[in-house]
Every structure is written in structure tokens, then in C-alpha cells.
């Protein structure tokens, strides 16, 4: 058979099971778009390439499958960079296919030429510059294998325009690429027995679990371990949803904005089971003083994470789920009454403080209200800032892949397009994007994309007329000297929504704001809600940057 590079690319994506691609066309990827005309793949036209990147992420984070996005060369590719870097830091499998100027033009500073390959080396798991149509037959399946295998991550495929147009004869389509089996990194019986022994000998063990549990699909097994041996558990931002919110063994999120009781309990631990985590500075505080009284067992699928930030007393390089499969049967039953009683005592000594202003403009109240209204299977996305930390502290996440947030890169502008992606991949479920008045404006143009698609997405702009987390740090660490953290002008978000033919709700104007909020979460289709909150509220407690986790202020 004979096909062009563009046709081969699109057909290979179909064969991988890709059904939706978000992107923006331009001069250098027009042949690929032309090939999409004859494809079963649905294309979602975004208004900015970064929106397309985060839609791909919303698809990937909510399903575990690869999300795909397209951009043209030059500015198309540079606009994607933030979304790709974000996927790298949070280990999200996306594939970005970028158009490139024709191969003979590379290096001439041609129109819309940028070194996409060089530019994306540090922010991808791997990247390819495709030199011939024939190479696509190996590069595309390989990209899927790389994106999904081991620790997932983003892959860029840069395709020069002449390669897209090149026609070649070939006999067979390659097999679709898939993840290497997790069992290819085996766990020895001896290693599992060693950890079981350390758990048996520990008086005050704590599980510290993160995104690796979600990628591994190991939440249930983790719960078995914690239940069977009475081990309390704390999670990182990337691990939100891995444990039932109402279980007393669930200590909530740890670290910079974790609860006071959690960070204090961690100091008393004598064994730390670190599962699918990377000892990130926002979780550990001063890493040398993190759990300094505990032996550390570290399990991660990425061998380079072990010992990178903190030396482990014992480690296993493996998928967390594979390890748990072997470990759980070896662990004895234990209720750890004494340790759990001590944790109860710490919690009574350091209760979660009530908000400064407990009314409907209080952010924690608002989040509590949203959680009360939201359907059980609602997917939450957040942007980045105070609202994100309040959501992580107070939203009772119901399960894995139900709380999508930009953890490592902390990208404002993530939440809204990620919500569109999650809604595309999860028809029938309500997706709620908790955003801020700063964050929403970083990808506000995607309101047009949402209007195109009419999805069940509710955006709630927690509006404090500030870059709240910046304002908070200026208050706490710069003697209340404020600069560049208050918006002089904020738009009427409800009017903007209406301008994009969406339903906009301004809770200030509603006689019954709670009823209006309820309608905009439960009634089908897209809603944009402007929800005013007190601008002086801070996220507490807070570990000052660089301090150890016990040195919390506030809350």
C-alpha cells in the first residue's frame, strides 16, 4: 500500500485507539490536518495550543490512557511547552505531535522555525525528530510505549512538512505500542519479606503515598495494607483520592499545607513506607529533618528517584502495585491501638482551626458546600494557588483520578482546559474546575472551546481579586509590603462567559447564592460561576519555604 507520512501518522494514531485529539492547525501541520478529514478521530480545535496540551492531559490524567495534542511549528510548538513540562513533572502520558518546517529548511531560520527537538529535550521523557515517512512506522508505536511504560511521561514527535507529504510504499502496519508489563521489574520474595519484617518490628509506622499509586492503579491494595496492619496514611498532592477521606487512618495531605497534626505525627513515626513518591520539597519541607526518627523504606518504579532527595534505609525498585501484591499477604493483622490512639491525641491537641470568617464567602465553606452538592462521581480539577491548596485540604476526594491538579510545575491555567479534557473522556460525569480569578485568566480563551462542545463542565472562579498565594507570602514573609499581587481591574466573569455564549452566574447578584451554585453544578451543560471570597484569607497552616515540617505557622 502507498500512503503519505501524514496519512500514516493519523492511521497509526487511530490504531492506537486514539479517538480525540486537541490542537491548532498552522502552516507546518496542514498535511496532518488534511489527513484528519478521512479519519475516525474527532478533533477539538482550541484557541491556544496550551489549551490543547492541557486537554490532552485532562484525558490522560482522568483515564490513564495517552492524551494526544497537535500544534504547528514555531509559536505553535512554543505555546505547547508549558503543558508538556507540566506533564513531565507530574508523570502524565501525553504525546504532542508538532509540525516542523521542511527538512531542507531546518537550520535556515525559516518562517515559523524553532528547534522544537532541542527545546523539548529537558521537558519530555523522550522526543523524536522524524526524518522520513518510513520512520513514523516505528516512532509512533514507540512513542506510545515510552509514554506509558514504567514512570509515564510526555513524548514529542516533531514532523517536518516534507515528511508529512512524502509518499511511501509499505506492506504491513506495525503493532500498536503498549506499556511494558509492570511485572518486567520483578519484586523478590526476600525484598517483600524484609519490608514485612520492618513493618512487624515498627511501633509507629506511617505510609507516605503519592502519584505512583494512582499510575499503578494500586489504591485498593494500599487500602488492604493499611486496614490489615492498622497503618495510618498520608498522601501527597498527586496522591489525592487514593484513600477514603473519612477513614480515621487517613491523615490527609502532608507538607507545606498539610494539617498540623499530620506533620507532627510524621515526626513521631519510626517507620516510613514511601510508596510511589519522590520526596518533593513541598511534601518534605527541609528534607534532612523530614521524619528524622524513622527508618525509610522507599518503593518507586523510577530507580533514579531512590536516593535522589533522601537516602532510604531499604528500597525496592518496582511498581508499587506489584510490591503490594507480594507484601500484603506477608503482613500480619494488627490494630495498632496505641499508635492510632496517639494520633487521635495529636489531632485533639492540634485541631484543624475554623476559618477566620465562617460565612459563604469563606473559601473552605465554599469548598465544603461544593462537595456537598457535587455528584458522587464528579471529577474535580483545580488551577494553581490558594484555591488549589484549600481544595486539597478540604475536598473529600472520592477516588483516584478524580482530583486533577498541576502538582510539580504548579501551572496556573491548567484547571480549565484539563476539565474540558476530563469531560471529553468521561461523558456523563460532571467535571468541576475550581479556579481562581488569576488562574482562569491564563486560559480563559478556552471558554470558546467549551461552548463549541457544550460539555458538563462547571468552572467556579474563587474570586479574591488577587494572586492570593503571592499576596499571602507578601503578608507573611515581606512584612505586608504588597506588590503586583492585587488586580487593579478584574473582568465581570459572568459577562465574559455570556460573551462566549456560556451561562455565567455571578453569585453576588443572586438572591439565593446556594441555590444558584446548586443549579450550576447539577444542571446539564457548561456553567461559569463567579464566586467572591474574602481576599484576606490565608492558606494555613503553612511551612515557610526551606523550613522543616514541624515549623508550621498559622492554623
Amino acid at each position: 500500500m502507498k500512503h503519505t507520512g501524514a496519512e500514516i501518522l493519523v492511521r497509526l494514531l487511530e490504531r492506537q485507539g486514539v479517538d480525540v485529539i486537541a490542537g491548532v492547525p498552522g502552516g507546518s501541520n496542514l498535511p496532518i490536518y488534511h489527513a484528519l478529514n478521512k479519519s475516525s478521530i474527532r478533533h477539538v480545535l482550541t484557541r491556544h495550543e496550551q489549551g490543547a496540551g492541557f486537554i490532552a492531559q485532562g484525558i490522560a490524567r482522568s483515564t490513564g490512557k495517552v492524551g494526544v495534542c497537535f500544534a504547528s511549528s514555531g509559536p505553535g510548538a512554543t505555546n505547547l511547552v508549558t503543558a508538556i513540562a507540566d506533564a513531565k513533572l507530574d508523570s502524565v502520558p501525553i504525546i504532542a505531535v508538532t509540525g516542523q518546517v521542511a527538512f531542507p529548511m531546518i537550520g535556515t531560520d525559516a518562517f515559523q522555525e524553532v528547534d522544537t527537538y532541542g527545546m523539548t529535550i529537558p521537558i519530555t521523557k523522550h522526543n523524536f525528530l522524524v526524518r522520513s515517512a518510513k520512520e513514523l512506522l516505528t516512532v509512533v508505536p514507540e512513542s506510545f510505549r515510552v509514554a506509558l511504560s514504567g514512570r509515564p511521561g510526555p513524548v514529542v514527535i516533531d514532523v517536518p512538512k516534507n515528511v508529512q507529504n512524502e509518499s511511501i510504499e509499505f506492506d504491513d502496519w506495525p503493532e500498536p505500542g503498549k506499556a511494558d508489563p509492570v511485572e518486567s521489574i520483578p519484586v523478590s520474595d526476600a525484598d517483600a519479606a524484609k519490608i514485612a519484617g520492618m513493618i512487624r518490628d515498627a511501633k509507629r509506622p506511617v505510609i507516605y503515598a503519592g502519584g505512583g499509586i494512582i499510575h499503578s492503579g494500586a489504591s485498593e491494595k494500599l487500602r488492604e495494607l493499611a486496614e490489615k496492619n492498622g497503618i495510618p496514611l498520608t498522601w501527597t498532592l498527586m496522591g489525592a483520592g487514593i484513600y477514603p477521606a473519612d477513614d480515621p487512618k487517613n491523615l490527609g495531605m502532608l507538607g507545606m499545607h498539610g494539617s498540623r497534626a499530620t506533620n507532627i505525627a510524621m515526626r513521631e513515626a519510626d517507620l516510613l513506607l514511601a510508596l510511589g513518591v519522590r520526596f518533593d520539597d513541598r511534601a518534605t519541607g527541609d528534607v534532612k529533618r523530614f521524619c528524622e526518627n524513622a527508618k525509610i523504606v522507599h518503593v518507586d518504579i523510577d530507580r533514579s528517584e531512590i536516593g535522589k532527595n533522601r537516602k532510604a534505609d531499604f528500597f525496592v525498585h518496582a511498581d508499587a502495585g506489584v510490591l503490594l501484591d507480594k507484601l500484603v499477604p506477608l503482613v500480619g493483622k494488627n490494630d495498632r491501638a496505641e499508635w492510632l490512639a496517639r494520633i487521635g491525641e495529636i489531632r485533639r491537641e492540634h485541631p484543624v482551626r475554623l476559618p477566620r470568617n465562617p460565612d459563604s464567602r469563606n473559601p473552605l465553606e465554599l469548598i465544603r458546600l461544593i462537595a456537598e452538592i457535587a455528584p458522587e462521581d464528579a471529577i474535580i480539577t483545580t488551577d494553581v494557588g490558594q484555591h488549589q491548596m484549600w481544595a486539597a485540604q478540604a475536598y473529600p476526594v472520592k477516588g483516584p483520578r478524580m482530583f486533577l491538579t498541576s502538582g510539580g510545575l504548579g501551572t496556573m491555567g491548567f484547571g480549565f482546559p484539563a476539565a474540558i479534557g476530563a469531560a471529553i473522556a468521561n461523558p456523563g460525569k460532571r467535571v468541576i474546575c475550581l479556579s481562581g480569578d488569576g488562574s482562569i485568566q491564563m486560559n480563559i480563551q478556552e471558554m470558546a472551546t467549551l461552548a463549541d462542545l457544550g460539555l458538563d463542565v462547571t468552572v467556579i472562579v474563587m474570586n479574591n481579586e488577587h494572586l492570593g498565594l503571592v499576596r499571602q507570602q507578601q503578608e507573611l514573609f515581606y512584612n505586608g509590603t504588597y506588590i503586583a499581587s492585587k488586580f487593579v481591574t478584574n473582568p465581570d466573569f459572568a459577562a465574559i462567559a455570556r460573551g462566549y455564549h456560556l451561562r455565567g452566574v455571578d453569585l453576588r447578584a443572586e438572591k439565593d447564592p446556594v441555590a444558584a451554585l446548586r443549579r450550576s453544578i447539577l444542571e446539564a451543560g457548561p456553567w461559569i460561576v463567579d464566586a467572591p471570597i474574602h481576599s484576606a484569607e490565608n492558606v494555613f497552616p503553612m511551612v515557610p519555604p526551606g523550613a522543616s515540617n514541624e515549623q508550621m505557622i498559622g492554623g
Partner: protein
Amino acid sequence: MANLVNTVIALRVKNHPGVMSHITGLFARRNFNLEGILCGPTGDGSESRMFLLVNNDERLDQIVQQVSKLYDIIEIKVEEDYDRTLFLKIEDILSGVKQC
């Protein structure tokens, strides 16, 4: 001649125009020191051999782990007792003692 300060990471890699930037880029962005590189294609040119001269310090394990993750690496070995004459000629050329 053994050298305790430095050590050599010997690599077999897929040979293509981007492989060098993947490796040197990793050293730059992870703030690892790279003291010298010897590199050249082998056999039919589909593979290259690469010798990276690095400090033999507590970061060596992390460097090796990070380099191992790169897609184009076929084989990686740390040669504690590397032959220092490998890099001597380069040092002489760099210091102007010898000509290229």
C-alpha cells in the same frame, strides 16, 4: 593509571544527531559536572561509544541512574579503574602541549 578523583562512564548509545544533546543536556540541567567526553560511531554507524569523564563523588550513583533512563542508551558501565591515558592526549591538546 588509576584515578580516584574521576571516573569514567562508558556508554553504548544509538547513534543519531540528537543523542549528544540528550546526554550533555542532562548533565547541564541536573547540575552534574562533566569533565570530558570521548565519542565516536562504531561498526556500521548505527551505534556510538561514549566515554564520559565525571567526578567520583556521592552524586555518581544519581548520575548513572539518570543517564540510564535516557532512551538512546543501550549499555552503561562505570569504569572505576579506567585507563587515564584515554584522556591524557586531550588534556595535552587542551593545554597546548600537543597539537590536534
